[in-house]
C-alpha cells in the first residue's frame, strides 16, 4: 500500500509494523511527530504496545532498556539535545546488550539554539556501541526501521535509525507500506532467549567486573559489532528479496570512471545523485558514494569502492572541533590500508551545518575545488562560510 508519508510518519509505521511492545515517548523538535503518530496508532489500536510518556530522553532510553530486559521489543525516538541526554544510556544499552531501536532525527546541537539538520548529534554517539543507519529518503526510513530491529536483535546491540531534520522528518513522499504479515515473515516475534529477567532463572545482569574480565566483555561488543557488518548485508539482501527494495552499506553512483568521487550520507546523497548527473552532463567525471552505516564502519566496502580513484571529496554535515569532519576521518582511516599507488587523495568539506542547504551548487563547488586542487589542504574546507 502506497501512502504519502513524512519521514517521521515512516519511522512510526516502521516501528508499528515491527510489532514493538513498548514505546517510550518524550517530545523534541523535529522528532515529535514520530511519537505523536505512535500515540495515535496506539490509541486507535493499530499498534499493540505500551506507550510510556516519560519525563526525559534519559528515561526514554531507560524505559526501553528495562523493557528489553523484560524480553520485549522496545522503541523510542529523539533528536539533538535529547540524544545527548541519552548518551549515558546508549553506552548502557550496549553494555547490557539490549537490542533497543531508536530513531534519531538529526538536529544541530545548541548553542546557539537551532532545530535544523546537522549530524553532530548522532556522530557524537559514534563510540557508544550503537549501530548507526543513515537514511536518504522516507521509504528507506521505513524499511531501515524494520531492518534495524532484525540487525539489533541478531547481534544484541542497540541500533539507531537516522534521518535528517525537516528534509526527511517533515517532508512528505509516497512510501510503500509493507503488509504486516510480510513484515512478520521478515521479522518474527522477538525471542529474548535467556537474556531477560526471568524469575524462574534468577540471574544478576551487569555485576561489577574487575579488570581481569572487564576487557573480555568489552571485546565481545567489538566482536559482535564486527559481525554486524555481515549481518547488515545479509539483512539488506533478505529484505531486498522479500520486498524488492535493495539497500547497501556503501552504494556508488557513476563512480567507475570518476575522477572525483563525492562521499556523502543521508539526504545529501539524493542531492548528490542529481549533482553528479548535472556534472556528467557538463562532461565532468563526477561520481558519488553514499555511506549508510557509520557504525559498524564498512571500511572494506569503502576501501574497495575508492581503490584507485584519483580524488575523494567527503561532505560532512557535522564536525568534531579540533579534528573536523568525522566521515572524512573515518574514510581516511579506511583508505590508509590501501597501497600508496591505489590510495586516492582525500578532501574534506564541512557543509550544511544547522540546516544550511546543501544544493547542487554546493556540490558543484566542492567538485570544482577538488578537481582543481593538486594536493588537499591541511584542514577541511568549510563550504560557504562567510568571513573566512
Amino acid at each position: 500500500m502506497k501512502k504519502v508519508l513524512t519521514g517521521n510518519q515512516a519511522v512510526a509505521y516502521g516501528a508499528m509494523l515491527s510489532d514493538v511492545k513498548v514505546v517510550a515517548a518524550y517530545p523534541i523538535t523535529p522528532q515529535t511527530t514520530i511519537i505523536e503518530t505512535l500515540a495515535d496508532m496506539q490509541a486507535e489500536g493499530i499498534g499493540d504496545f505500551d506507550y510510556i510518556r516519560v519525563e526525559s530522553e534519559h528515561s526514554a532510553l531507560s524505559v526501553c532498556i528495562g523493557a528489553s530486559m523484560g524480553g520485549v521489543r522496545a522503541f523510542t525516538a529523539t533528536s539533538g539535545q535529547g540524544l545527548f541526554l541519552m548518551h549515558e544510556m546508549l553506552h548502557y544499552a550496549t553494555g547490557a546488550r539490549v537490542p533497543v531501536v531508536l530513531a534519531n532525527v538529526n538536529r544541530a546541537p545548541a548553542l546557539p539554539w537551532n532545530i535544523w539538520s546537522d549530524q553532530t548529534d548522532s556522530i557524537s554517539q559514534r563510540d557508544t556501541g550503537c549501530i548507526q543507519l543513515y537514511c536518504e529518503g522516507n521509504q528507506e526510513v521505513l524499511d531501515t526501521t524494520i531492518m534495524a530491529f532484525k540487525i539489533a536483535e541478531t547481534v544484541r546491540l542497540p541500533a539507531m535509525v537516522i534521518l535528517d531534520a525537516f528534509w526527511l522528518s517533515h517532508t512528505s513522499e509516497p512510501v510503500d507500506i509493507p503488509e504486516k504479515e510480510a513484515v512478520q515473515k521478515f521479522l518474527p516475534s522477538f525471542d529474548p532467549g535467556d537474556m531477560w529477567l526471568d524469575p524462574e532463572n534468577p540471574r544478576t545482569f551487569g555485576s561489577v567486573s574487575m579488570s581481569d574480565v572487564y576487557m573480555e566483555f568489552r571485546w565481545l561488543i567489538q566482536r559482535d559489532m564486527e559481525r554486524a557488518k555481515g549481518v547488515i548485508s545479509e539483512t539488506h539482501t533478505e529484505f531486498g528479496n522479500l520486498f524488492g527494495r535493495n539497500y547497501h552499506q556503501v552504494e556508488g553512483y557513476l563512480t567507475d570512471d570518476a575522477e572525483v568521487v563525492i562521499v556523502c550520507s543521508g539526504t545529501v546523497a539524493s542531492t548528490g545523485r542529481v549533482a553528479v548527473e548535472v556534472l556528467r552532463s557538463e562532461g565532468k567525471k563526477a561520481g558519488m558514494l553514499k555511506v549508510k552505516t557509520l557504525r559498524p564502519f564498512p571500511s572494506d566496502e569503502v576501501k574497495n569502492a575508492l581503490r584507485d580513484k584519483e580524488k575523494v571529496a567527503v561532505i560532512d554535515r557535522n564536525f568534531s572541533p579540533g579534528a573536523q569532519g568525522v566521515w572524512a576521518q573515518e574514510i581516511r582511516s579506511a583508505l590508509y590500508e590501501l597501497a600508496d599507488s591505489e590510495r586516492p587523495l582525500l578532501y574534506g568539506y564541512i557543509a550544511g551545518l544547522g540546516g544550511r542547504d546543501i544544493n547542487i551548487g554546493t556540490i558543484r563547488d566542492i567538485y570544482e575545488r577538488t578537481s582543481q586542487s593538486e594536493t588537499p589542504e591541511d584542514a577541511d574546507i568549510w563550504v560557504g562560510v562567510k568571513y573566512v
Partner: protein
Amino acid sequence: MKHIDQKVPTTLCAISTTSSAVNKTGSWRFSRPVFIDSIPPCSYECPAGEDVAGFMYLAANGRFEEAWRLIIKDNPFPAITGRVCFHGCEAKCNRAEHDEAVSINSVERYIGDYGLNHGLTVNNNSAKRGEKVAIVGAGPAGLTASYYLRLWGYHVTIFDSSALPGGLMRYGIPSYRLPKEILDGEISRLRQMGLNFKMGTTVGKDISWNKIDRQFDAVFVAIGAHREATLKVKGIEKKGILNALRFLREVNLGRQPVLGKRVAVIGGGNSAIDCARVSRRFDANVTIIYRRREAKMPANAEEIKMAREEGVQFLFQAVPLEVCGNETVAGLRLQKVALKNANSSDRGQPVPTGETFYIDCDTLILAIGEDVNKEDLPRHITYKRNRVETGHMGRIGDSKFFAGGDIIDTPRTVTHAIASGKRGAVGIDRFLAGLPLGKSSLDPYRLGDSENISFSLTTSTVPFPKRNRTREVVNYSNLNPFYFDRRPRMKTGIIPAEERARSFQDVVISPIEEEVTTEARRCFNCGSCTGCGNCYLFCPDLCVKNDPDGNGYTVDMDYCKGCGICVQECPRGAIKMEFVRE
C-alpha cells in the same frame, strides 16, 4: 578474533549465576559470636540452684508438668519452698531494674501445687545400688538427701525421733505458712519412692550410733539444733516463760498453748515473728522486743509486714533487764540501747544507755536461737563455732558420716537445708563410688563461684540448649531491655489481716493459672537461649541458622563477618563476642 589470548566469557554481558556462597566472608572477621549459657542471678542466689529461667519459660507456655520436673531436679519440695522460701532470688532479679522483680515464689508455689494436685510422681533410677544409707533426722535436709540417694538407687532408711517426718517444716513452721496437707503431700511422694521410715526412733538412744555405723555404708546426720539458748537476766526462772521452738511445736501438734493475754517475744528472727503471729491467733496482745532497728532484723521483711498488719507491736533498741512478777511473769523491765558502728554493712553493737522502762506482760517467749546439742551426736564429731565441722560435701572428717541442715554452718532456712541435703547426697554417692570429695569435684554442678549445686542448669538441656557454660552471672546491662515491655508484677492474693489473725489457714491465696502464666512471661530468662530468633533474623550475612541438632542456633563461621549485631540484639545475653586469631 584478533589479539585474544584468553578464553572469553560465555555470556554476552556480566551475567552472574554463581552463588556468592563461594565467597567465604568469614575471613574478614576478627572476633566471633559464641553462644553462651550464663548464670541467671536468681539461680545463682538460689541455695537449691533451681533453673528459674527454665521453669518460668515452661510455666509461661503452660507446660507445668515439665516445669515441675525441672524444679524437682534440684528441690524435692516445690510446694513447700513455694510457700516458705524467703526467695532471695527475687531480690537479685534483673527485672527489678526494668520494672519489678518477677514473683518467682508465687510461680514456684503454683508449680509445686500443680505437682501435688496432679499426683505427679518421681521414678527411681532403674540402676540399683547395693549400698545402704542411713539418714538421721527427717527434716528438710535429711529428706532431701534421702530423695536423691533413693533416686540414684540406694537403700535408704530414715530415723527420726518424732512421730511424723518433716522436722521443723512440721513442728516449727506454723500451718498458716505451710499447711500440713501440703507437707504431707510432698513427703508422701518420697514415701512412694521406697524410703524406709523409722519414725519415733531416736538414734543414740533407741539405737546406738555404733550400730548405725555398723549396719550402714554411709550415714547422713541432720538432726537439727535443739539446745535452747537462754537469757541471763533477773527473774528468768519465773513461770510463763516459753521457748520459741517448744511453743511452736506444741501449737503444730494441735495443742492449746498456755498463753496469757499480753505476750512479749524477745528476738528478731523468723521464729520470733512466727511466735508473735501464732500468739495473735490465740487472741493475745503481742509485742516483739528487738535490740536493734527494724531494718536490721534478721527476719524476712514480708513476714514483719504481715505480723504488723495482724496487730503485732514492735519495740526496737531495747534489751530486757529483769523479768518482773512474783512466781509468774507480770512484766518486763527494759533498757534502751544505742547502736554503735551501725551502718549498711554492720548491724551495729547495742550499747546500754542507762534509760530503763517497764512494760506489762504475762507471757514471755524467748526466740533467741538454738544451738546444736552435742550430746545427741556421735562422739567423734568435731565442732567449729558450735556447728558440726564438715568438708565440702558435708563429710565429717574421713568418716562415712555426712552432715547437713541446722547442725552445720549454713543459714537456718528450709531452702538452705535442702541445699545441704543435696550436697550431702552427692558426697555420699561419690564416697560410695570411691570418688574424690575435694572442692573441685563439685565444679561440674556449681554455678560459677557459688557453692550451690544445680542439676537442672548443669545437666538438663530442657528447656534451653546449654552450650559454653560461663562462670558469669548475667546482669541487667547484659540484656537488651528493648525486647521486654514494661508490665507490673503480679499481685499476690493475701487474706485480709483481721481474718488471718483469727485462723491458721494459709494466708496466701493460691494464684490461678492465668496469673501464673502471665507472671512467668515477665521472666527475662536471663542468660539462656529461648530460641526467640533475633540472632537469626538480624544477621545481615545470613549466617545464623537453626542448629540441626535442635540445640538453638549456630553461626556459620564461613560467612560471619563478626559484626556483633546478634550479640547486641540478643534479649538475654546468651551470645558474646570473642576475639580470635584464626
